[in-house]
């Protein structure tokens, strides 16, 4: 068992620990959480880190070909919630998830579910670019290779090339596929990680603050990429940048201290927030 990864689990756990000392009652979500024909439907999701109740009773849907942005102050549980969807929280000792997360109608926490195909369906991009210390080619080829998606080297190469093309990295790396992925710049590394995620042809892409370590130009590249990818995939993105949420997402969910405060169409939510906390947050009064 590994320790809680720095920057995701730990952050949420400590942040929510502070929150847990604030006495308060459960808060109902404002706005429509459901969509028609959802890809993912979460009902009454609760997450505990040991005794700490990190995420409270979340209900939310993710539609087909939709970008859903999760925003909120640090430690509000949005990353923790995101990691429930492909059960990455399994790797954190003492983490317990309750509730129902249906992906195409099947509960990811169900007894018959194997996490390996689940995670293959739900690609994930992490906050810190984490390419393998191998060549660029090997980074992208890893997923298809372990899942046995290709019959021969030609097909594998084709997948690598198309994945890099979709991730908008092909032009920059086509002459140096054998060089280590760790030698790329931060933005390139993150796009390499996206290429790696889409190489296994997932149905959903979960992104955990993918641009937090990147400069504005690299951020813009990745945002454009997300919009392109959303034609084929459902994307759920955790972000600290409200501008980013406003730029790329169709719907936005605002988390606060482990509660889902408000969900709405992105345009609506940023112009006419339905909850006082949402308004305070998006206008920069706290957070």
């Amino acid at each position, binding site marked *: *068992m*590994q*320790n809680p*990864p*720095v920057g995701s689990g730990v952050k949420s756990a400590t942040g929510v620990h502070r929150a847990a000392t604030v006495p308060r009652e459960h808060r109902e979500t404002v706005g429509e959480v459901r969509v028609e024909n959802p890809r993912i439907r979460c009902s009454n999701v609760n997450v505990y880190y040991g005794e700490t109740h990190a995420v409270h009773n979340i209900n939310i849907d993710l539609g087909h070909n939709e970008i859903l942005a999760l925003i909120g102050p640090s430690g509000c549980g949005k990353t923790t919630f995101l990691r429930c969807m*492909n059960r*990455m929280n399994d*790797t954190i*000792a003492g983490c317990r998830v309750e509730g129902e997360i249906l992906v195409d109608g099947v509960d990811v926490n169900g007894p018959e579910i194997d996490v*390996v*195909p*689940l*995670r*293959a*369906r739900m*690609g*994930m*991009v*992490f906050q*810190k670019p*984490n*390419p*393998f*210390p*191998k060549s660029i080619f090997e980074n992208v080829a*890893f*997923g298809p290779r*372990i*899942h046995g998606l290709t019959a021969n080297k030609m097909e594998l190469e084709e997948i690598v090339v198309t994945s890099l093309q979709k991730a908008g990295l092909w032009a920059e790396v086509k002459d140096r596929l054998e060089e*280590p992925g*760790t*030698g790329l710049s931060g933005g390139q590394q993150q796009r390499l*990680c996206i290429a*790696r*995620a889409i190489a*296994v042809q997932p149905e959903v892409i979960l992104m955990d603050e993918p641009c937090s370590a990147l400069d504005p130009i690299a951020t813009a590249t990745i945002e454009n990429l997300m919009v392109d990818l959303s034609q084929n995939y459902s994307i759920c993105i955790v972000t600290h940048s409200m501008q980013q949420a406003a730029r790329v997402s169709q719907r936005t969910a605002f988390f606060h201290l482990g509660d889902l405060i408000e969900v709405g169409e992105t345009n609506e939510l940023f112009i006419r927030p339905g909850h006082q906390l949402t308004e305070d947050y998006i206008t920069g009064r706290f957070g």
Partner: protein
Amino acid sequence: MDNPENTAANARKPIDIIRAGMRRRRAAETRFKLYGVAAITAGLLFLAILFITIIGNAYTAFEQTKIQLDVYLDPAILSPDGVPSSDALSSADYGRFVRDSIRSLFPAVESRRDVRALSALVGRGAVYDLRETVMADPDLVGETLKLWVPADDDVDMLMKGHIEREGSEDERRLSDAQLGWIDQLQADGRLEKRFNVDFFTNGDSREPESAGIWGAAVGSFYTLLVTLVLSFPLGVAAAVYLEEFAPQNRWTDIIEVNINNLAAVPSIVFGLLGLAVFINFFGLPRSVPLVGGLVLTLMTLPTIIIASRAALKSVPPSIREAALGVGASPLQTVTMHVLPLAMPGMLTGTIIGMAQALGESAPLLMIGMVAFIVDIPEGVFDPAAVLPVQIFLWADSPERAFVERTSAAILVLLCFLIVMNALAVLLRKRFERRW
């Protein structure tokens, strides 16, 4: 507080306080550096003393005084039937040839006592050298062979200046007559110091002039081979399971505490355990590298497990998340990403454990590897000695000539250790440089 402007004017600015403290800080730093240099100097000094002593004692062991004999291989004795048969060759009395040939150099020596004293100048290994030479080449029978044979250890010590010519004859190892013969041999060019090949190719012997390190080196090799083959996979597998798969609960805590404890258990305890379990219970033979390797495996395992766990811990969790996030199974994550990254650390830990095992003697004494073994072991089931035990045995021997051999054996052991530790550094450097 009543007059903020005044307070502000009187108060020292932070930069003044910082400047005032700089002298003290710099002094503390200089002091600390001095302590460090002093500690390193002291360490190097002791190391230098150790090396100077050992090398000073050892270097003479690499030369051995030899006597040139003209041996007439009498066909009447070696091949009475006309054709030299291997039976006759192997059972012939080579001692007589050696005695005859040294006597032929000093025809004046007549009395039985003198003949014995004269023969004593030639080391007993000469007989075996001669036999081997003849056995290897039966065509030599009938010819006169010029052969350099090792001189007795007393002659050797005299030549190297370790025993005295002066003093009363009764208290000397060599009599006046023997000294005279030695001088004459030297004058004839029949006595000289030559490179001591035997030391590197022979097994142990009661006679210092024939004793060599090769048997112990081979014994150490087989023992370490068994240790490596058993402890590396076991240690790495245990570490991987504990670090990557095992749930973190009270049981794994207990196991961790026990592993750390085992690393500190005196090695002789492992020797007793090996004696009780492997020899007395399982009935494995005594003094064999297999049992030695098993015992050293017990001793080395905790070291390897601890080092491997540390190496696994140092692999960033983001790599595991990346692999798991793509849908790799936990085993694929470990074998394809975590293990390769942790391997340099694991190898370093293993080599350090092996170096420890190479230098270990106490547990091997308990399982009988202290026995006097002349033959070079040919496998893990042959009785063998190991280098540190060989050092112990020689250090315990009364002959003066074993002193230099003890030091030489220590030197050989040190060389092996240096090679192994250098290998550890090299491996680490090499793997770290890859990306």
